[in-house]
């Protein structure tokens, strides 16, 4: 089960609404490398993980990603409050507005709604951990790209925090991959699949 804490993991306090920024930041909610996909990826993969360290790590990082999703949604929410009809038209936010008003809906910056194809769960620990390392790195690049396009310090500050978290998660997944390969045949990690084969590595 999960319990909700009525606070953000890191504060989001944006003084000036900016619907242009909202339209690109929303990609880290419903885009291909966004926080919704990150959480679903890890919380889905954990069931077929063969070792307790990996079950723990995927549960914990999957949980933290939910908190990141909440921060991104808070940013989109604050960037789109109190908009005039004129601002909606001028900023190009009108296309989103016509479908969702100012609800926070999971789409990419390119307007494609969130899709389950953004995540993978192969049921093979090496494939899944490589997927996770790739996902963290891609999310970091997305934050780098957002930081190239955004000047407002109120918006940059939480984005920098989230970018740092991608780096920490990448590090932990790297260690997890090391734990796995240490337990397998060092001459051939692929001799069997410990997520499925009962005596693999024993």
């Amino acid at each position, binding site marked *: 089960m999960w319990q909700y804490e009525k606070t953000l993991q890191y504060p989001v306090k944006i003084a000036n609404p900016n619907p242009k920024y909202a339209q690109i930041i929303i990609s880290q909610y419903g885009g291909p490398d966004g926080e919704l996909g990150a959480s679903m990826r890890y919380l889905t993969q954990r069931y077929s993980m063969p070792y307790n360290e990996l079950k723990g790590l995927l549960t914990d990082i999957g949980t933290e990603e939910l908190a990141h999703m909440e921060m991104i949604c808070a940013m989109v929410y*604050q960037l789109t409050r109190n908009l005039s009809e004129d601002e909606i038209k001028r900023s190009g936010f009108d296309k989103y507005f016509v479908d969702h008003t100012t609800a926070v809906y999971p789409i990419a910056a390119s307007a494609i709604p969130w899709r389950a194809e953004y995540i993978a769960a192969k049921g093979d620990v090496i494939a899944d951990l490589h997927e996770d390392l790739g996902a963290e790195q891609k999310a970091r690049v997305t934050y780098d790209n957002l930081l190239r396009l955004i000047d407002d310090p109120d918006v940059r500050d939480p984005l920098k925090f989230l970018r740092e978290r991608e780096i920490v998660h990448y590090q932990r997944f790297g260690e997890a991959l090391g734990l796995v390969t240490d337990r397998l045949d060092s001459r051939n990690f692929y001799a069997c699949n410990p997520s499925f084969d009962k005596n693999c590595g024993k």
Partner: protein
Amino acid sequence: MDDRMTLKHRIGAYTFAIWEMTLYLDTHPHETCALNKRRELMEARCQLIDEYEAQYGPFVRTSEDVKGDCWSWIDGPWPWEYGRGNN
């Protein structure tokens, strides 16, 4: 920032540090030094929460989360609502 917010932020910093140690321990479950560090951080956080609760009332959601005969859990501002008294 008033004293209440300063204390809340300090508790938040400990919460974050404890979380970092949690992820680290997931991949280093036998590292005594990290286990002890996490324990120290937990104790320090508990003390700050006691300090907060003595002055300002419940820090986390509890069955005490009632003001008078009203369910105060639903009171705003919610975490995403900056600009509506959530400064």
